């Protein structure tokens, strides 16, 4: 698979990472080698094989419809300087 610097740049943007040109070049070469190993999975015949997203059977669990304890607002806001009471403050949108 050809992992071009342009592709790495696109992936990095999706992952919200700013990479310098030399980093892109280095990661592209490494990714090419690593993904070539991952691609060997295509040798395995998985026709009619369901994917396992967990190693043991997992089912959806709904809790009882009762009010439980929640993290209170004061605590939730206590871990950042970016607050505008009683909310988190983010960068400008407009």
């Amino acid at each position: 698979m050809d992992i071009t610097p342009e592709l790495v740049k696109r992936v990095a943007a999706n992952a919200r990472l700013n990479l310098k040109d030399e980093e892109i070049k280095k990661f592209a070469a490494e990714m090419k080698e690593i993904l070539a190993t991952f691609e060997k999975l295509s040798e395995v015949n998985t026709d009619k094989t369901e994917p396992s997203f967990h190693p043991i059977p997992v089912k959806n669990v709904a809790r009882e419809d009762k009010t439980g304890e929640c993290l209170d607002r004061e605590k939730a806001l206590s871990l950042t300087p970016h607050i505008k009471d009683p909310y988190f403050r983010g960068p400008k949108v407009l």
Partner: protein
Amino acid sequence: MITKFVKEAQAGKINLVEHTEKALEEAEKISKEYRYVTAWADAVERAKELQEQVTKGTAHGRLFGVLISVKDNICVKDVESTASSAILKTYKPVFNATVIQKCLNEGAIILGKTVQDEFGFGGFAVNTGKGYEKPLNPFDKKRATGGSSGGAAGLTKKATFPHIALAESTGGSIADPASFCGVVGICPTYGRVSRYGLIDYANSLDKIGTMALDIDDAALLLEIISGKDAHDSTSAELPVPSLDTAGAVNGLKIGIVKEAFAEGVDNNVRKSVMEAIYKLEQKGARRIELSLPLSMKYGLAAYYTLAMTEASTNLARYCGLRYGATDQLTGTYNEFFSRVRTNNFGEEAKRRLLLGTFARMAGYRDAFYTKAAQVRTKMLQEYAAAFKQVDVLITPTMPIVAPTFDEIKKLTPLQNYAMDILTVSPNLAGLPHISIPCGESNGLPIGLMVTGPHFAEQKIIQVAKAHGK
């Protein structure tokens, strides 16, 4: 060791405050030299509380007065918990992970947080986050502890006070450092222990487990933290058996995985593990050679594809706004997030973010992520067939003994990942496994790994103890 101490502490024969102060002093000295602890809990304050219980006659709990160290990715209330990543620097959880609460309910004293590869991204504990020093092997400071639970393993080896460690494994992060540091490490079945309060690496792979100098202590802590938890929907609704079991192998069928003794495994490692198997045979075990061709050939690729994909979604939450590292609120949302993430994630975290993001992007998802999950199904089938023939599997834990930092530097990222060849498959299949010391090579410890079917923790402990007897 722990049980006797607990009884004496409850009976007031040990002054817990003095004991804890002394232990803390020792732990600080060890950590200064070997770099194992990233943050300290208020252990002395807790010891005072427990000592008061002794005075009042209300002392209770199977871990009464025992110091428990906690891998940095497990949340401890009011103690900085960062998974050894700069992006979580300053994060002090406002709650305890379920495993921590269970330890406290049994009278434990939390010692502090142990260093790891950033978010668990490594097998040598050399990928600690920016600003975190790499832990040094207790046998030779030029060598790595193994990872990712490197601090936990190193401290377990060096501490002379009664201590058990809470560790965590995604692809081998308990067994690997336990092997390199010469301690016992148990990783339970996926779902046996609640992950509530664990800083996620890969949700379908992460398992909290234990480390100790002795099998009984590691088993006791595992029994205490096991069980269904309403806060974790993937925790298993199964009764927790007693893990206080005697060592016995008479009549048990032990599977020897052929590929795990093949080329690439150090001669001394192979020899020591084979000798241990021979001893188990003499105690009545039956040895059956078998092969796991699919798991041993494709396990690494399937594991890394799934682990990195899951990691890339988990790490999306770190945006610098609500907790942890941050920056001035300038630029657009995307510019702000990208700046905080770029400045704070380490190189291996970035590498895995790129690979994981790629493997789930439109156009590549089916060939990588879905394919790996299908191969996982086939691996689960292969293991299920093996466990129809045998009770447990035995392999070396790691193909080598602890390498030097210079040797590690020479490895490419791919060669680095390949060192996990023996641990990734049981982890991907969510199988319980235990690593125990089984000899030395040039003064460095060798690890033997016993793997069992799902929820057979008792059996792997039983076999491991038979070796030690």
